[in-house]
C-alpha cells in the first residue's frame, strides 16, 4: 500500500534522513522505533507531504506522492496525527472531530465516523461540547487520534501517541491502536516506547540517525540482541 524507497530528507539543508526504505501492507500495523532525534517525526512528515524528500520516492497504492501537498495526500486517504497533537484548542471537542472529516462531503458518513470515534473513546462523547484546550493530556491525545479517524483514512500515521502520558494511559493508548488494527485499519506507528510498540506491531523498523538499522517481525525484533543492547543498555 505504502512504499518508501531510499529517501533522503534535509532540514535547513542538513540531511536528517539519510536513507530509509519501508513498506506498509494493507491491514498491517507497522511500527518505526528509534530514540529521540532519530528522524521518526521527519519521516512521517515527509510521507504526509509537509516535507519533501531530496532523493528517493514515496508511492501510495502505486502512485507517486512525494511531490504532493499535505491536503492532497489527505484526500488520497493518508492521515497524520502529529506528535504535538495540534488540536484546535479554542474549539469544542465535536468541532475538532468534524474538522477531521473536512474532506468527507457525505453527512451520513461523517455521522458514522463520529459514532465510531465515540465508541472507541467514550470519554470524548462525554466531553463533546467542552472547549478542547481544557482537556487533559490523555484526552487531547484521544481527540487527536479521533480527529485523524474522522475521514476514515486508508492509512493512519501516529507520531508517538504515548508521549507525555502516564504509564496507565500509555497502555490504554497502545491498546486502542491495536484494537484499530484488529478492526482492519492500516497503521504506521512511530514510537520511542520500543518494547510496548513492537509487542503490538506486525512488523517493525528500527532507525538510528536517519538510517534503518534493522527490520523484521515485531516478535523477531523483540528477541534480537542488538535491539536489547541499543535500547535497554543490556
Amino acid at each position, binding site marked *: 500500500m505504502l512504499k518508501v524507497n531510499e529517501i533522503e530528507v534535509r532540514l535547513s539543508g542538513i540531511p536528517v534522513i539519510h536513507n530509509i526504505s519501508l513498506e506498509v501492507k494493507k491491514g498491517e500495523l507497522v511500527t518505526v522505533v528509534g530514540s529521540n532525534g532519530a528522524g521518526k517525526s521527519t519521516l512521517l512528515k515527509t510521507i*504526509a507531504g*509537509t516535507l519533501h524528500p531530496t532523493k528517493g520516492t514515496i508511492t501510495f497504492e502505486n502512485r507517486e506522492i512525494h511531490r504532493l*501537498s*499535505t*491536503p492532497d495526500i*489527505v*484526500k488520497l486517504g493518508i*492521515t*497524520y*496525527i*502529529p506528535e504535538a497533537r*495540534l*488540536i*484546535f*484548542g*479554542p*474549539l469544542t471537542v465535536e*468541532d475538532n472531530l*468534524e*474538522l*477531521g472529516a*473536512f*474532506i468527507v462531503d457525505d453527512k451520513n458518513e461523517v455521522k458514522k465516523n463520529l459514532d465510531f470515534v465515540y465508541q472507541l473513546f467514550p470519554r470524548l462523547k462525554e466531553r463533546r461540547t467542552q472547549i478542547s484546550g481544557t482537556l487533559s493530556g490523555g484526552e487531547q491525545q484521544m481527540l487527536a487520534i479521533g*480527529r*485523524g479517524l474522522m*475521514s476514515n483514512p486508508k492509512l493512519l500515521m501516529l507520531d508517538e501517541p504515548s508521549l507525555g502520558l502516564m504509564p496507565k494511559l500509555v497502555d490504554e493508548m497502545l491498546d486502542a491502536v491495536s484494537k484499530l488494527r484488529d478492526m482492519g485499519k492500516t497503521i504506521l506507528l512511530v514510537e520511542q516506547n520500543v518494547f510496548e510498540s513492537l509487542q503490538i506491531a506486525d512488523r517493525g523498523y528500527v532507525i538510528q540517525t536517519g538510517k534503518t538499522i534493522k527490520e523484521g517481525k515485531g516478535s523477531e525484533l523483540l528477541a534480537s540482541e542488538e535491539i536489547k543492547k541499543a535500547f535497554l543498555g543490556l
Partner: protein
Amino acid sequence: MLIIDALLQGLLIGLLFALVALGLTIIFGVMDIVNFAHGEFLMLGMYAVYWTNYFLNIDPLLALPVSAALGVILGLASYYLLISYLLRGPAIAQLFGTFGLMLFLQYLAMFLFSADYRMIERGFLVGKSISFGPFVFEATKLAAGVLSLISFAVVYYFLYKTKLGKALQATAINKEAATYMGIKTEKMNAIAWAIGGGTVGIAGGLLVNFYYAYPMVGILFVMIAFACVALGGFGSVKGVFFAGLLIGVLEMIFPVFGHLVGSDFLGPHFKFTVVYLAYFIIVVVRPQGLFGWKN
C-alpha cells in the same frame, strides 16, 4: 436623556465601526498580516456607491452589492497579485507591501476622482429622520447600523456554523494542523481576503450615505478599526464586535459629558483622545484584548 441619546447614536455608529474592523481582524487572525490598505478598501467602497448613484441614479442602498463586489474583488486581487508573493519574504515585506498598497490606492483615487469631498445627495433615506419617542435618528445612520449588524451576523454565522467557516477558524488557530485535515491554506487565505474586502466594501457603501468620500478618508476609519482589533483581541471576531460598540459609545458620550459640565476642554475634539486612551489602557492591562486567545 442626552446621555441615552448619545448611547444609542454611539451604538449605531459602533455597529459600523465593528463591520469596518471585522475584515481586518479576520485577515490578521488567519494570516498574521495587518492590512494597511483596509481603509482604502473602505474608501473605494464609498466611491463605488457614490458613482453608481451618480451615474446610474440607483438608490445608494440598492447600490450596496456594487461596493460589496468591488470589496471582494479588491481583497482577492490583493491576495493573489501581491500578498501571496510577499508571503515568501520576511514579515516586514508584508508590512511594507500592504502599506505600499495603501499609498497606491490613495493616489489612484486622487488621480481618478480628484481630492473633492463627495457625498450622496439623492437617495431614499437621505435627509430623512426617524423618531422613536424622544429619540430622533437620521435614517441613513439607522440603516447603516442595522445593515452593519446584519452583515456582521451573516459573517458570524458563516464562521461559526458552516464547515468552510470552521475550516477558516482552524487555519487561524493552527495552519499546519489544518493542512493535516485536508484544508488548503491558500484557499483559506483567499477566503479571508474576500470576506475582509467584501465587508469593508459594504461598510464604505453605508458610510457614504452620511459621510464624505475623499481619497484620504480611509485613514480616519482604519485607525478606529485598528483600535477595535487591538481592544477586541487580535483575530477575535466577537471581540471586535464589542470593541466597535464600545468605541462608538465612547466617541458619542464624551462630547455630551463635556457639554453637560459646560467644558470646552471635554468637547468633540477630545473624543478620539478618549478612544485611544481606552485602547492603551486595555492593551497594557490585557495585551490579548477583551476576547483574545492569540498571544
